[in-house]
């Protein structure tokens, strides 16, 4: 097992920082702060968690929800509205899916579906991990994932999907 040290921290930041930040974006306007705090919290653990990435997702989730609750409802909605103007993804020429449209479609999903999709697709978590993360069953996590994908397909339109 790796020791908790700068090397591991740097590797976690490189490999999971962007996806963790994407995950936190769904709740709060300063997701980088939440992810940074989670990584710092990791350094304070007496032992490296057995499954460090799901552990980080749990801490980031709680930090992001707490940060969201700390600001007023009106300001939260203003911040989320402002987020709609920017992409959660890298804008790259030649992508078959429009990054801004995908961002907007994700933002419009119910929280449970959005966080399940982000944790699964970009975080690479298993449904068991996501179930533990959200306090739901694996089958519920799976159902939310499928429902979320179906909703995204609807919102993004069939024109975005190549079927051949």
């Amino acid at each position, binding site marked *: 097992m790796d020791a*908790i040290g*700068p090397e591991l*921290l740097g590797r976690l*930041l490189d*490999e*999971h*920082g*962007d*996806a963790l*930040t994407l995950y936190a974006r769904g709740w709060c306007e300063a997701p*980088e702060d939440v992810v*940074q705090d989670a990584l*710092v*919290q*990791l*350094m*304070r*653990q*007496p032992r490296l*968690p057995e*499954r460090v*990435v799901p*552990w980080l997702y*749990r*801490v980031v*989730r*709680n*930090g992001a*929800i*707490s940060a969201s609750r700390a600001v007023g*409802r009106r300001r939260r909605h203003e911040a989320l509205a402002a987020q709609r103007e920017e*992409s*959660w*993804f*890298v804008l790259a020429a030649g*992508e*078959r899916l429009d990054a801004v449209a995908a961002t907007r479609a994700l933002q*419009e*999903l119910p*929280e*449970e*579906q959005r966080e399940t*999709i982000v944790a699964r*697709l*970009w*975080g*690479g*978590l*298993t*449904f068991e991990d996501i179930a533990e*993360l*959200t*306090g739901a069953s694996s089958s519920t996590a799976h159902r939310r994932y499928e*429902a979320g*994908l179906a909703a*995204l397909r609807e919102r993004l339109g069939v024109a975005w*999907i*190549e*079927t*051949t």
Partner: protein
Amino acid sequence: MDRDDVEKARHAQRGAGSEKTSDFRPPTSDLANLEAMLSSLAPRAAGIDRDRLMFLAGQASALPPPMGQGRGEGEAPSSLPLPLGEGRGEGEAR
């Protein structure tokens, strides 16, 4: 997008992290295509200041562990699941 593309996207997805697994079988090829296309989008860079993180982490590692976290990961209050709030039910769009 053909089956090979989907498999490539999945492979890339699994290779991006050490704890990734593939325990999901999409119900339709349509959703599988969408899944592959979505996962090909790269999240925007986090913009976390690496030097500041290392500085804060160094400070944190010098402190004693938080109360009640002396025996392992499961005891960290910050790692227990929080319920989603604001009274929004499942299926209700934001």
